[in-house]
């Protein structure tokens, strides 16, 4: 079972991102679960959401994820206020929404995790470019897809297009593609 | 059927099991009270009752109920001084109900529609003689005939009617009306023999084999006063003047006539003479307030241009003038001479200062007690001091002499004789308690002023004997009848039925009234409080 923890701020769609992650997995025929950290957080407040993916079995547990395999940080400003990488699996992945390089943002983590497991992606830039909105969910999930092959890009795109039929879904799909290609290039370049 | 929950769900109207009548400490009961109009009516009419039917437009029923007590509605609707209206409770609210007008409407309706009285179902075989075909005699005849007795009336005059014919001017009572209502009585089988002056009552009774006799000879003799006169001034009496106008249609009399007296007869004479072109002046020793004449009649007289000399007595007469002494009223309202005199130009004087009984035939009846110008009668039975001989009307009433009273006395005498003929002593029915305005609920009645009867325009009235007052149109009559408050008696307004918080009054249907459902009546008293008529009393329960 793969466990993903998403950190974002209220209004950036972190909860939706988790749901789309589970939906994308579902669309690929897997069992998945997503849930928010529940609360009355308003716009701007730190938000946590969770997702689990299992290849074969029904997901029974409903505990919050304490030891994530993947951490997605949708807002880099959270790094200073929340211990976003708490409990991260030693061979886990971290993807951070920023234009800067991982070494510049989280040098400690880069040392902690295997090389190439800490990634940065300008998800907001892609979101704004495609949608004119700071909803970095789709680029973030696309980055996850690019980095890990857990998901296919198409599944990510399809999940958003299912939730938001029409323009919004397509724009998300476009932003996802931008991020996916960016990261694939980056990974290629990095190797 | 539904699968109902125990206790929580109930079937409809199951409360009928709960007889809340046991809570009651007071019990509503219907009371039938005596309306003031009925109480006042000298003829004993059940006015409220016949107005009830008139209000519905059921004129025949109204007329039938009216004639239960009085066979002369058309006449009474014209000449009765309708003191009932003076007592009408509606007067407290706005104006009295025009009872008299509705009565006339009903009377005229009956004549127009040729309504007749029912002949008695069977004859009793008893014979009653009535002496005098005036209102009292004819009323008694009517009622006795209804009882099934055979009635014969002997009348000294040429035509029946008595004072209705010879004392009341035509402009107040057209004779075709009078004739129609008398004919209705004779149609029942009452026989009237005119121009038959009875000299010996006992002999007539014996001769005809009568079981009872009623004396209703009236008071046909005008009172006289001693006026010192020169031989040239005419001094006439009122009844003669009215009688002559009735029989001849005119009278030879001077232009300036003084009518001496303050009663209705004085007014009748003055108004009649005015129609014949004279200039009558009423001379009366007291003032208007003390005048016994009917107010409406007096208003009409003044309106027709008749002069009045108030506080005056005639102390002497010469050929062209009267000597008048001025009077003043003392503390008790009696006129006292002042010693001041004046002259009143007048060619004639008509005395209208009262009427007297012709005692000549009464004196011949042995044992008949007569006191103060009237036969003494038992007030309960109207029987005279002579067994089997009764009396009614003016001849038996010294104080109050009106057509209406005579009719009432005639009815009472008939009832008394009906008992007498069966060997029973007659007792008047006890009267119901008074229906007082205080016991009623005036809020419920809508405001509606009295319909004023159209009157002949004055100019016409002063020179013709056409009837002065027209009757009500049907529309007006219904309107007026509907102004009746139905004092003390049910008018089926449904208030009690409606306002009962416990549905404890049953409505029995049109004309049938209501009944209290004592199974459920809690005795709250709302029905009694909200009854417009004061027809419900709350009576303590025996506990």
């Amino acid at each position, binding site marked *: 079972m793969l466990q993903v923890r998403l950190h974002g701020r209220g209004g950036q769609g972190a909860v939706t991102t988790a749901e789309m992650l589970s939906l994308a997995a579902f669309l690929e025929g897997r069992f998945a679960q997503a849930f928010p950290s529940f609360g009355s957080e308003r716009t701007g407040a730190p938000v946590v959401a969770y997702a689990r993916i299992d290849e074969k079995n029904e997901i029974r547990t409903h505990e919050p994820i304490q030891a994530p395999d993947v951490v997605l940080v949708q807002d880099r400003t959270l790094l200073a206020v929340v211990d976003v990488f708490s409990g991260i699996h030693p061979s886990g992945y971290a993807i951070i929404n920023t234009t800067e390089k991982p070494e510049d943002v989280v040098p400690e983590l880069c040392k902690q995790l295997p090389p190439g497991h800490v990634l940065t992606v300008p998800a907001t830039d892609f979101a704004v470019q495609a949608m004119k909105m700071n909803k970095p969910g789709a680029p973030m999930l696309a980055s996850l897809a690019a980095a890990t092959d857990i998901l296919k890009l198409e599944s990510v795109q399809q999940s958003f297009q299912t939730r938001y039929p029409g323009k919004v879904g397509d724009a998300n799909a476009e932003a996802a593609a931008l991020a996916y290609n960016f990261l694939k290039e980056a990974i290629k370049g990095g190797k | 059927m539904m699968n109902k929950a125990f206790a929580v769900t109930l079937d409809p109207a199951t*409360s*009928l099991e709960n007889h809340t009548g046991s809570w009651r400490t007071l019990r509503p009961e219907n009371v039938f009270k005596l309306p003031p109009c009925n109480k006042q009516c000298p003829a004993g009419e059940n006015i409220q009752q016949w107005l009830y039917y008139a209000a519905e437009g059921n004129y025949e029923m109204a007329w039938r109920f009216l004639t239960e007590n009085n066979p002369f509605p058309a006449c009474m609707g014209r000449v009765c001084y309708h003191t009932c209206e003076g007592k009408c409770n509606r007067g407290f609210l706005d104006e009295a109900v025009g009872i008299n007008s509705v009565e006339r409407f009903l009377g005229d309706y009956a004549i127009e529609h040729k309504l007749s009285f029912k002949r008695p179902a069977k004859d009793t075989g008893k014979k009653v003689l009535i002496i005098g075909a005036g209102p009292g005699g004819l009323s008694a005849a009517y009622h006795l005939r209804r009882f099934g007795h055979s009635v014969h009336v002997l009348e000294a005059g040429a035509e029946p009617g008595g004072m209705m014919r010879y004392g009341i001017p035509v402009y107040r009572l057209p004779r075709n009306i009078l004739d129609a209502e008398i004919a209705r009585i004779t149609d029942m089988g009452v026989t009237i023999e005119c121009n038959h002056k009875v000299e010996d009552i006992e002999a007539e009774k014996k001769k005809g084999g009568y079981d009872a006799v009623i004396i209703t000879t009236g008071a046909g003799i005008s009172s006289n006063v001693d006026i010192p006169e020169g031989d040239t001034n005419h001094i006439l009496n009122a009844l003669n003047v009215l009688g002559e106008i009735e029989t001849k249609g005119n009278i030879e009399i001077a232009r300036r006539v003084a009518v001496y007296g303050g009663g209705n007869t004085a007014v009748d004479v003055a108004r009649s003479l005015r129609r014949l072109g004279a200039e009558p002046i009423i001379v009366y020793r007291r003032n208007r307030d003390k005048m016994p004449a009917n107010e409406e009649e007096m208003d009409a007289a003044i309106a027709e241009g008749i002069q009045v000399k108030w506080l005056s007595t005639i102390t002497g007469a010469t050929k062209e003038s009267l000597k008048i002494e001025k009077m003043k009223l003392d503390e008790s309202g009696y006129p006292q001479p002042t010693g001041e005199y004046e002259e009143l130009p007048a060619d004639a004087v008509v005395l209208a200062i009262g009427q007297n009984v012709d005692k000549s035939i009464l004196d011949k009846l042995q044992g008949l007690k007569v006191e103060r110008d009237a036969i003494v009668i038992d007030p309960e039975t109207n029987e005279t001091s002579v067994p089997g001989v009764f009396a009614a009307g003016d001849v038996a009433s010294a104080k109050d002499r009106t057509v209406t009273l005579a009719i009432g006395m005639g009815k009472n005498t008939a009832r008394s004789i009906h008992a007498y003929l069966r060997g029973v002593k007659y007792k008047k029915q006890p009267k119901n308690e008074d229906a007082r305005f205080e016991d009623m609920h005036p809020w419920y009645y809508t405001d509606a002023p009295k319909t004023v009867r159209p009157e002949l325009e004055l100019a016409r009235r002063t020179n013709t004997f056409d009837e002065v007052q027209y009757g009500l149109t049907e529309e007006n009559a219904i309107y007026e009848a509907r102004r009746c408050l139905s004092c003390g008696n049910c008018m089926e307004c*449904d*208030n009690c*039925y409606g306002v*009962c918080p416990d*549905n404890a009054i049953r*409505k029995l249907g049109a004309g049938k009234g209501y009944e209290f459902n004592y199974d459920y009546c809690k005795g709250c*008293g709302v029905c009694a409080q909200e009854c417009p008529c004061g027809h419900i009393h709350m009576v303590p329960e025996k506990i």
Partner: protein
Amino acid sequence: MLDKINFYQTGSNTVGNRLINPSMRTEQASVDRPNSLTCGHRACQGCGEALGARYAIDAAMKATSGQIMVVNATGCLEVFSTPYPESAWRLPWIHSLFGNTAAVGSGLAAAAKVRAELNGDSVTPRIIAQGGDGGTTDIGMGCLSGMFDRNDDVLYICYDNEAYMNTGVQRSSATPPAARTATTMPVGEEPGSDWGKGKDVPLIAMAHGIPYVATATIADLRDLETKVAKAMSFHGARYISILVPCPLGWGLKSSALTVTAARLAMETGFYPVYEAEYGQITSVRKIRQKQPVINYLQIQRRYAHLTGKKADPNVLARLQAMCDANIEHFGLLGDEAPQLNPAAIQAYERSKKV
């Protein structure tokens, strides 16, 4: 001819009147009236609420050919009409709670609509929710306002007897000033219920803009029936407040005075009787015979402290002024259509204090 004479002895002031056309008589005058609330109920003697309820529901039954279902708040009417094992109702009736009557009515109306849809019925039963003033103006106010807000197809009838009678005559927001209740005793400097308090729920109802609002009393049956019938001609939320004197709670000098007390409330201007459509007053019942307020107060022991020897004439004047304000605001006198500027009666007192 009979119909031409439009004067009928008692006119339309009495319950019936044999002289008028049967179609013009009240439903209460009919021998076939439904008696929706029938005999054997356990209301006190002279209960105005029992009377008002029968008047109103019968009228609604007539207006709908018997298609009425009733929701009843807790209170006297509920207690005296349906103590196990006997119900005094002849129509479908439900009681749930004190403060939820309007909402139960909303639910029932929704159910009636759905059932009619599902069953293909051409007629949908209509709903009346009813309660006393406590159950309406106080504890039931939230649900009432919600029902108005949604414009649910419910006629809400408040039987206003100006206090909590079922629990022993405590003050409600419909209790008029100076009235004695168990919680506003006639002691202290301003005896009885406080001045400048209370709320005018008919005006509040109007402010919701619902199709129909009316006030009525048990002393003008024809007016009441007409209003109920008119209310049933509308769909959506409707509100009628009916003044129903309580012989016990008001301390009427006799249980017989129930209707009379209601009449005096109208004729003094104490209780303005009017109707409104979509928030606008459309007609006012004019005072027939204006009475000074003392005539109304003196038959009620709850105002004994205003009419006795020790009574303060200023208090009486204050109440008279409130009646006069009502008469002016609602245009209760005269024949002409009034220039309406209705305000809650307590506004008069409150404005004086400013």
